[in-house]
């Protein structure tokens, strides 16, 4: 990340995107999508091809096979990857710290770092850090229902 930050800082400064949320919106997907794709492709490959062929034989079009068979079966993987990507962006500190100067634009992690000063009691910093974890926790509890193992069990022999 540190290798990326320096050139991106220079480029974003020249493009006028440095002190903007749009800049971060561009950087976060660019760093997480490759990993997310890598994680998902393994799962998609694990879905038996016969299931998709059965869908075709049952009268579905290619697109509908993806919509009605592949995606529902990939739900656990989609949920866990979504959670992972959200956590990365939510906790991200380095880019936010380097790019954002305007206090109004601070992300949560960047804002909490602001509490690290001699004028603010240390407890506030700690409390802020704890509060920052709550949304991820809540999201995880909600996502957990999708994280069932062995969703494809029983579909094909062996």
């Amino acid at each position, binding site marked *: 990340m540190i290798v990326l930050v320096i050139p991106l800082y220079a480029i974003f400064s020249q493009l006028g995107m440095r002190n903007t949320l749009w800049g971060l919106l561009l950087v976060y997907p660019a760093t997480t999508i490759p990993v997310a794709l890598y994680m998902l492709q393994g799962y998609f490959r694990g879905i*038996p091809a*016969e*299931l998709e*062929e*059965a*869908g*075709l*034989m*049952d*009268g*579905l*079009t290619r697109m*509908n096979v993806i919509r009605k*068979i592949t995606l*529902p*079966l990939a739900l656990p993987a989609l949920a866990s990857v979504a959670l992972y990507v959200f956590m990365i962006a939510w906790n991200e500190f380095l880019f936010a710290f380097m790019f954002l100067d305007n206090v109004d634009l601070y992300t949560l992690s960047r804002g909490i770092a602001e509490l690290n000063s001699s004028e603010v009691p240390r407890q506030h910093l700690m409390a802020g850090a704890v509060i920052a974890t709550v949304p991820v926790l809540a999201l995880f509890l909600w996502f957990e229902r999708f994280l069932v193992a*062995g*969703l*494809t*069990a*029983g*579909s*094909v*022999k*062996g």
Partner: protein
Amino acid sequence: MGSISLKSVEKWFGEVQVIKGIDLDILYGELIIFVGPSGCGKSTLLRMIAGLEETSRGQIILDGDDVTHKVPSERELSMVFQSYALYPHLSVGNNMGFALKTAGAPKTEIAEKVNAAAETLKLNDYLDRRPKDLSGGQRQRVAIGRAIVRKPKGFLFDEPLSNLDASLRVDMRFEIARLHKTLASTMVYVTHDQVEAMTLADRIVVLKDGLIMQVGSPRELYEHPDNVFVAQFIGSPKMNLMACETDALKNLGPKDAVQLGIRPEHIAVVATGQGHCEGTVQVSEYLGADYFHYVDCGDLGLLTVRTAGSADEIEGQTIGLRFDETRLHFFNAEGLRTGESA
């Protein structure tokens, strides 16, 4: 409705030709079985009929319409896969009703047809279960149920019983035969198990290396194989093949005959010197109703002889073998059938 014609159908995977020009007419209501050793192209051919595999050359005609370049959904065929391929996220009932739902049928009609199919396949008690909660046999019944719920133009079975154990296979075979009688629709069935082929088929298509070796009823194939390959492939244990030039067999067949074939059950065990040849019984296999004897006949090679299970034990003995001369098969140098038995 439901006749299928293949016209000079070919399949190429890159430079490799897997199906080498097949012409076949499958009649309405017929149960036709593709058999052959693994890699002969039988599954590929079925998948081409289904539309899951593109046809490189030739035409596939379904009820008079050229469907060669149509997608599977436009062909209105149902398929049962070897691995069942049930939708794991749907209940048994929803699995069976999936095609109807896709076609936009009203809910009451779906429920009615699913129940009727479940009744036929004895699946009524399992409609709310998920596939993972079923045994192998039940899953395969669901897969068949999914195929019969809608009225397709034809059914395609891709080795549907291969994953089942022996006794279940016999039950399901009966089930499929019964379905074929009640539904009276066209079925194309792929198997490498010749017992399935012999018992179920109206006609059998024997394939080898992407070519049809012979098409005919089970009896035709068994009694009048066109070539050495079919002669050896159909029938268990295999037909005995011997070179015709040996002294014992020299004058039995037509002049161009090179090989002589005889089924194990058409050889009688006699006293030495009274048959066409003699040999030593190396191994006898007792199967209850039958004995299979493997007899070393010197120049003629190892012959398999089938006798009744009640016959005496002859393992290790030297015996004479007499061939039923009305049941001999002769093949020429190209391996094709020649003449009738002498």
